């Protein structure tokens, strides 16, 4: 029984980590708490669903389309809203509120367009294969979700650690001004970051949509809370922290739901968070970065 729960936890945790990765990337590079990340996540799953049901696209193509659509939305938000605020040097509270506005607009539009009811991928489009490992019932879908999430995260890690682009992004995270003086195209990389983060969020949306097979306009809210929890846990702006925090939250949630009551799981998670913030506000792995606007 425990092994089965561990598999569920791994699946859920890897999607949380993927979602939180985009969230923390934007915070690290742009210093913005992007509260529209949950709405972007929701858009990803609707786009994939539309591609599968309307155009009979295969799942991989639907996922790609969802990533492009969500990424485009993220880019649009950055160009139209966050950039003017950067130019104006607005205090950090202001971009966060602007992204709340975006989240409201996007959620309300999809509710108007698709209705509030739960949408599902047609059964025949999902990989139905499964097998047993010992006593554990493994769905191929779950394996695929974990594999995709970890693959994307690995690509991001390697990009950030090993490439010129990654070095430039890390320089911006330290200080955009200094990075600019070193000849880095800071604005361009802000756009790239917004696109990549939103695309990762959109893919996370598709993966959750496939795992639970229930898509609603409101599905972005709970995961946004989880995302906030994960980046506090792992340290805000910390990539490695997002991975470990995401997996940890997935495990905490599944295990406490299985062995405690379903609601107490969240209470334990957020209570823990509250404590961590009091004792170690920088998160388990992060450093406190004070950046004055």
């Amino acid at each position, binding site marked *: 029984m425990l092994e089965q729960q561990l598999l569920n936890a791994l699946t859920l945790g890897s999607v949380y980590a993927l979602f939180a990765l985009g969230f923390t990337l934007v915070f690290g590079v742009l210093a913005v*708490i992007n*509260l529209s990340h949950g709405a972007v996540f929701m858009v990803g799953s609707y786009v994939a669903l539309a591609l599968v049901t309307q155009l009979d696209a295969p799942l991989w193509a639907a996922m790609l389309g969802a990533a492009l659509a969500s990424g485009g939305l993220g880019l649009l938000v950055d160009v139209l*809203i966050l950039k*003017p*605020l950067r130019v*104006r040097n*607005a205090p*950090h*509270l*202001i971009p*966060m*509120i*602007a992204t*709340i*506005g*975006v*989240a*409201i*607009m*996007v*959620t*309300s*539009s999809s*509710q*108007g367009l698709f*209705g*509030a009811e739960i949408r599902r991928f047609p059964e025949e489009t999902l990989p139905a294969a499964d097998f047993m490992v010992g006593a554990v019932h493994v769905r191929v879908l779950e394996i695929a979700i974990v594999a995709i999430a970890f693959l994307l995260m690995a690509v991001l890690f390697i990009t950030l650690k090993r490439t010129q682009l990654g070095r430039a992004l890390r320089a911006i995270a330290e200080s955009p001004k200094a990075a600019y003086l070193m000849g880095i195209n800071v604005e361009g990389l802000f756009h790239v970051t917004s696109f990549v983060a939103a695309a990762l969020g959109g893919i996370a949306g598709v993966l959750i949509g496939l795992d639970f097979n229930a898509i609603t306009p409101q599905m972005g*809210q709970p995961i946004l*809370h989880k995302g*906030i*929890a994960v980046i*506090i846990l792992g340290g*805000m702006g910390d990539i490695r922290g997002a991975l470990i925090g995401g997996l940890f939250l997935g495990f905490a949630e599944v295990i406490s739901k299985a062995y405690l*009551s379903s*609601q*107490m799981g*969240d*209470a334990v998670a*957020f*209570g823990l*968070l*509250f404590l961590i*913030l*009091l004792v170690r*506000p920088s998160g388990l792995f992060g450093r*406190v970065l004070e950046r004055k606007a």
Partner: protein
Amino acid sequence: MEWFNDFWSTYSTLVFTVGVHMLLALSIWLTLSCGLLSLANAAFMGIGAYVSALLTLNAGWAFPTVLLAGGIAPALVALVIGAPVLRLSGVYLAMATLAFGEVVRITVLNLDITGGPEGLNGIPLATEGWHIALLLLLAFYGLARLRRSKVGRAFEAIKEDEIAARLMGINVNRYKLLAFVLGGFIAGIAGALNAHFTFFISPREYGFEPAVDILTMAVLGGTGSLVGPALGAGILTLLPELLRFLHDFRSLVNGAVLVLVVLFLPKGIWEPRRIRAFFRKGGQA
């Protein structure tokens, strides 16, 4: 008076809600005026609502004492969590207070005395229009006096530059705690008022979204004055009602207004200097 009675019987709940939201916006203005980005006000409102409703339902206290208790309970909670929480600043404080809000919400969701997810039903109607009006006036008057007092100037100094304020001999920690506790008190009273005209309260009303909504109201209206938050609360509460004909799309307008104000009116809608300049130039901003 015929039309007024018609209007009142249809819209009194809406008017009450506007009043309560104005109180909430003022409560977050208080912490913002001290430079604290605290998002605990929805939780404080919830504590006030539940404490007051339980006192009315189970202990049968009189309404004024219930209101007072609804304010004092969250103020005490603020006092207890204030010392550790207020060591944090900026976004960390925002996150910690959001996490605190989730802890409160989930606790209420799981307790038996609070009715769990179903909430509390059948709270007797006790709030009247003049209660809300009077308390709003008191809050306005009190906060306006506070702004011009030594305390208000200390808040402003802390908001502008905490280190400089400390060097000027201002006891920064104590003033921050004062703002946090007073904000909790006002939010708690708003919650108690709210519980006694909606008949019904549930944990859902005090979670993440309301916390963010309250902040949004204050920032939309403008935090430079007391009028701003009240105006923002009025607009964000009434707009969805006025836009009912848009059905599912109506909150789209709320979001768009928010984005546009943030982009084009950096100090919020209510900015006396800009409005005066607008009229002096004969309508050309």
